[in-house]
């Protein structure tokens, strides 16, 4: 199957990031992290930071590597195939993208530097209602005289994070991004463990003081769209590896005098899984090209990002469910690895928009014809 390496930079990323994973990660670590209190493996996070992976997409002038979205998609793909338990996307890539998009300033620069160095961890708290994808519409969380009051839901990467980037509505009713210390007075969080062991938080702010107002929240939309495409790449990685282990299994498991992979019903099903993944890949490619275009078109990027994630999530859920089926009874055990892929897909699929919501968004932004 094909994967997301598209150029030489992507190949280098594959080799380098893959090397780090080969040395310091395996599925045993994924399993162990399922009961971790915050979801952040400090030692591993430090390794990611030291090797520059937290700043992969951040412009060089801000201390990052300035890689293209196409090249960094390879990282997310591997986060999927290897079931990386760390909140690289929600706690690394996304907050880095948000901070990099905010205007330069003392607080913003210090925050971004600390994030890239792995010294401080950030979570982006923008969502207030389930199923909503617009970052700055109808915000109920308000900023008044330097203090925030409101509620943010489904925040990934907040448990174990030292700081929050929250969207708020200021006195003029304009949406802004503010930096809040997670340990500040007036910040309360309720953490829930998700199906794959990762943590998600429900945050309440009651007159919580901000550290800084980082400017208009309009910087969030492009960052969320990029995160959608990154999530798509990760979902495709999950799907592809689930299919690969299934094809392997079908080749070795024998019943009725032959490998079960010889039975046509299963062959056709696996062909359909591979097809679904391929369709997700080309949709992801299309979105990556839009992000990396010399003159990016915001609306087009948003439309293609929605399509890419919807397509990839469909693939991931369908394929991982089917992978368990083909494994038979052992597929339904905790001991077999295949089930881990389903749980990962289930958790990532609704993040930043379920397939249904994103399909509607795709349509609203012009659908397949591209114009309204």
């Amino acid at each position: 199957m094909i994967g997301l390496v598209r150029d030489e930079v992507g190949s280098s990323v594959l080799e380098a990031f893959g090397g780090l994973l080969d040395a310091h990660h395996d599925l045993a670590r994924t399993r162990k992290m399922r009961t971790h209190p915050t979801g952040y493996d400090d030692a591993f996070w430090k390794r990611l930071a030291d090797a520059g992976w937290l700043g992969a997409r951040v412009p060089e002038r801000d201390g990052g590597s300035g890689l293209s979205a196409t090249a960094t998609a390879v990282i997310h793909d591997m986060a999927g195939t290897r079931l990386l338990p760390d909140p690289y996307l929600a706690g690394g890539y996304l907050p880095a993208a948000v901070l990099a998009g905010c205007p330069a300033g003392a607080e913003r620069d210090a925050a971004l530097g600390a994030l890239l160095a792995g010294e401080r961890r950030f979570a982006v708290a923008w969502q207030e209602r389930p199923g909503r994808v617009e970052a700055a519409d109808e915000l109920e969380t308000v900023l008044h005289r330097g203090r925030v009051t409101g509620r943010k839901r489904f925040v990934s990467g907040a448990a174990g994070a030292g700081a929050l980037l929250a969207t708020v509505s200021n006195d003029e009713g304009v949406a802004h991004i503010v930096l809040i210390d997670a340990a500040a007075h007036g910040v309360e969080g309720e953490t829930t463990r998700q199906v794959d062991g990762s943590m998600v938080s429900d945050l309440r702010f009651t007159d919580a003081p901000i550290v800084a107002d980082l400017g208009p929240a309009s910087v969030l939309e492009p960052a969320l769209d990029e995160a959608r495409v990154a999530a798509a790449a990760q979902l495709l990685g999950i799907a592809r590896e689930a299919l690969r282990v299934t094809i392997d299994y079908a080749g070795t498991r024998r019943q009725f005098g032959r490998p079960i992979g010889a039975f046509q019903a299963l062959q056709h099903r696996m062909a359909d899984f591979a097809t679904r993944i391929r369709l997700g890949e080309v949709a992801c490619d299309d979105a990556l090209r839009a992000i990396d275009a010399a003159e990016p078109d915001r609306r087009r990027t948003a439309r293609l990002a929605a399509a890419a994630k919807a397509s990839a999530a469909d693939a991931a859920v369908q394929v991982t469910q089917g992978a368990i089926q083909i494994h038979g009874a052992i597929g339904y055990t905790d001991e077999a690895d295949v089930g881990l892929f389903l749980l990962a897909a289930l958790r990532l699929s609704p993040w930043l928009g379920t397939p249904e919501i994103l399909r509607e968004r795709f349509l609203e932004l012009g659908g397949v014809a591209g114009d309204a």
Partner: protein
Amino acid sequence: MRDDLASLPIEHFRAELRSWLEAHCPPAIRRPVDRLQGEEAEHWHRVRHAHGVIAPGWPREYGGLELTVDQQIAMAEEFEGHGVARTFEVGTAMLGPTLIRFGSPWQRQHYLPRILSGEDQWCQGYSEPGAGSDLAGLRTAAVRDGDDYVVNGQKIWTSNANHSTHCFLLVRTSTEGRKQEGISFLLVDLRTPGVHVRPIRNLAGHLELCEVFYDDVRVPAANLVGAEGQGWTIAKSLLGFERLAIGSPAPARLGLSTYRKVADALGLADDPRVRAERARLELRLHELTCLSRAAVDAMAADRSIETDLSVLKIVASELFQATTEATIALAAEHGAAGKLATSAGELDLAQLYLISRPATIFGGSSEVQRNILAKRWLGLPDG
């Protein structure tokens, strides 16, 4: 059409085609669902030939436009955008490139100009009553007798044989060895004594598909393309850009636009269920369009597209069906009637729906395509 069409930048290229179509495409054949046959098809062929807007993929030395893959796609899109009815381009799109690659000098010199001018109308004789998905099992025999081959057998599903002058056949010249090794590629004049064409009425009411019976039909040996036993290889090497046609998003696009027209006509455009269904189908069409473009890019860069072709065939045909199924379901009682009157004219819903049914059967059924993917792409074992 200007001589330098092929050298124009793509946007200019498209614009030239668009204005040519406006000026020269007969308004009566702007019927996107239909396939032209007989006099209408022949007239349209003559118009295109006269203006040099034909055989886009042929080398210039044989009278073609020698367009790049990108240009051929663009041309097909402009014709589709103009709503031009489709034609059976068997001669120009299939046999022409085959003769250019495998034909003898005489065959090229004799047949190519006649394909181009439309003087010869070709059809493809492959399937038999006993050889459909298992085409290699074909039994129509060609026995060498002096300077001729004597052909006996029967072909079925030969599209447009009732309006064709010639047919290229896959025939069995040997029963030794593997069944594929005994197959040869033969060019037959349908007016030869012993040929009998019987049209078959399809569910959409058209007479397109035919049975063709061959009783002691004498075919000059000079009409054998390539060597005896090379027929399977020749037939399998469907060449160039035409391979992509089988995965074209155009039919699904048409199905989806018809769905929207029905929704509008019934006042359901803002119904949440209609929005959700549209969103689902549009996303799938987007995926198909992305895949089609990826295959074009790969073909243009000379990379292999074998796997993507089977994926394209499955996805394009099944999505076409999904759109027509959704449309006829949305039309409710009008679906049973098969037609719906709208402010923009009458929509023939039954026609479009029925035309989509064989899409998953011909050109390698969905089941056969999945077998190919499973074995060649995923490496799954034999039984």
